[in-house]
């Protein structure tokens, strides 16, 4: 288990618990009551800490190395029926973006999402979840495929941004994202987007135009990462806590501002502490929304989707 800096109290208590259990198993002294008491204490402490996380601490949780990534969600939600499909049919297969068909309790669904690597080697191959234009074009190809066969689309968003490389620019990173925004607005099938970790900027939005856009409790979504925001506005990385606060990037703030449609609660102490629980929660949330969206006609869904995004923004009309 990796502990974040603010989780020090939990780490200490869990260390004590391990020792206590060791003593209990070696000696004949019955410590069951003590252990139970300590476990309760850990649960209380975790609850206390996680109920009062600052914006920056939530950003830290969203990047926790043991937090589940896209493919893990897909595997569970599809009950391991997922068939991954590759390539954008033009240039390459981008490993930072994955997608394919799977069955959600018998219903065929197109799953798409950015994928971060699970070890050092894979992190490099998957470019830390930063997709190239091919990734966005693969995603669009798969969305069109889903539309053709009338299957709903679920996207999992988890990216520090679109890849800012030389080749990405040559092959039109801006155009690839822009095209997705326009095409996703007109998809005839239901689209549900879930931010499971990091939702940075256009790189996240590139697969983020949905009838429902939902955020996990400890994920973040904004126009820029707090570190880069700090660099631009204060000319130093050191103000990242302040930037995180100012950007109002947490699930709670985004929901309050009407920029996402809902928040998915995480297990106590974050998704990384209980994978099975968060997978099951996400699966039930998807099923609920798919059932709701299935009752609306395709044209009505498109209209509502466009109206929803069109209403975002705060302007004052001085004529009014």
């Amino acid at each position, binding site marked *: 288990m990796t502990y974040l800096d603010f989780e020090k109290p939990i780490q200490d208590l869990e260390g004590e618990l391990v020792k206590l259990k060791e003593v209990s198993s070696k000696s004949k002294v019955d410590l069951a009551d003590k252990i139970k008491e300590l476990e309760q204490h850990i649960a209380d402490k975790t609850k206390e800490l996680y109920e009062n996380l600052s914006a920056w601490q939530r950003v830290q949780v969203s990047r926790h190395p043991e937090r589940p990534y896209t493919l893990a969600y897909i595997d569970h939600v599809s009950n391991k029926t997922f068939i991954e499909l590759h390539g954008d049919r033009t240039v390459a297969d981008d490993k930072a973006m994955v997608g394919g068909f799977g069955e959600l309790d018998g219903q065929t669904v197109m799953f798409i999402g950015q994928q971060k690597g699970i070890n050092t080697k894979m992190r490099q191959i998957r470019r830390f979840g930063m997709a190239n234009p091919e990734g966005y074009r693969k995603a669009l190809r798969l969305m069109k495929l889903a539309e053709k066969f009338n299957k709903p689309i679920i996207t999992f968003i988890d990216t520090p941004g679109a890849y*800012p490389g030389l080749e*990405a620019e040559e092959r039109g990173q801006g155009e690839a994202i*822009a095209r997705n925004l326009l095409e996703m607005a007109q998809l005839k099938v239901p689209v549900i987007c879930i931010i499971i970790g990091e939702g940075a900027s256009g790189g996240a939005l590139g697969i983020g*135009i949905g009838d429902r856009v939902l955020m996990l409790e400890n994920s973040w979504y904004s126009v820029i990462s707090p570190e880069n925001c700090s660099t631009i506005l204060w000319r130093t990385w050191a103000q990242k806590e302040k930037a995180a606060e100012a950007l109002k990037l947490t699930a709670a703030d985004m929901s309050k501002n009407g920029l996402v449609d809902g928040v998915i609660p995480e297990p106590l102490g974050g998704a990384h502490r209980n994978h099975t629980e968060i997978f099951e929660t996400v699966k039930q949330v998807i099923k609920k929304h798919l059932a709701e969206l299935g009752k609306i006609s395709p044209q009505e869904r498109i209209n509502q989707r466009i109206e929803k995004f069109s209403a*975002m923004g*705060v302007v004052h009309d001085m004529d009014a």
Partner: protein
Amino acid sequence: MGWFKRLKEGITTSTKEKKETPEGLWYKCPSCKKIHTAADHANNKYVCQECGYHERIGSKEYFEIIFDNNQFTELHENLVSGDPLDFSDTKKYTDRLTDTIKKTGLKDALRSAYGTVNGQDLVVCCMDFNFIGGSMGSVVGEKIARSIDFCLKTKSPLLVISKSGGARMMEAAFSLMQMAKTSAKLSQLAQAGIPYISLLTDPTTGGVTASYAMLGDLNIAEPGSLIGFAGPRVVKETIGKDLPKGFQTAEFVLEHGFLDKIVPRTELKLQLGNLLRMLKS
């Protein structure tokens, strides 16, 4: 003693006869350093007559260049930005807005107007770089969205002139969602079969490139403009090498297939008129 030898020291013209040069009478090209009169320079659409350098200009100048007889009706001109996040960096966002409005005489980073170009109807949304780096906030998105509604109602083609550093940080996710909003509205324009021309000028980067600037039925650009998604500094940091010469210029973007054409500003109106005529259904 030669006749040319100065007898009196120093300049002796009396101050009474001295000729004053009014401010802004001359324009010195930052690229080739040649000097022209400001009037000639404006007549040449703010393009250097020697080297073709395109000076950055704003919506006022573009409207003048594009619309017949500089006649146009401005749309939604009194929209101003709110401060939904109560944002403050080195300065409060509301103060920054008030100061910029006072300094530039603009209400935000985009103005929208309709008029005619060589006799043909056109709605033009033009960005102003002077206004917080031409950053895209709620007003920019809202004006484009409302202009598209106007185009749908009147069946007028749309031209968006982009000149922007990208998203407006002070509106954070609200700014990000303007990309979604403008692209979604453009999809309605596309469904209605109404032409949309995107003109990319120096500079067009970030969220603007990744939304409406790249979505034209025709994407055209001014020569030498910086056009890209990630800024050159960021790309340089990523690859850890110097960038190739001409990287992210309009010519580079044309070469890689993302522009239909590069059009010098001096030919802009003519070519726009021709394209609009040919696209008319």
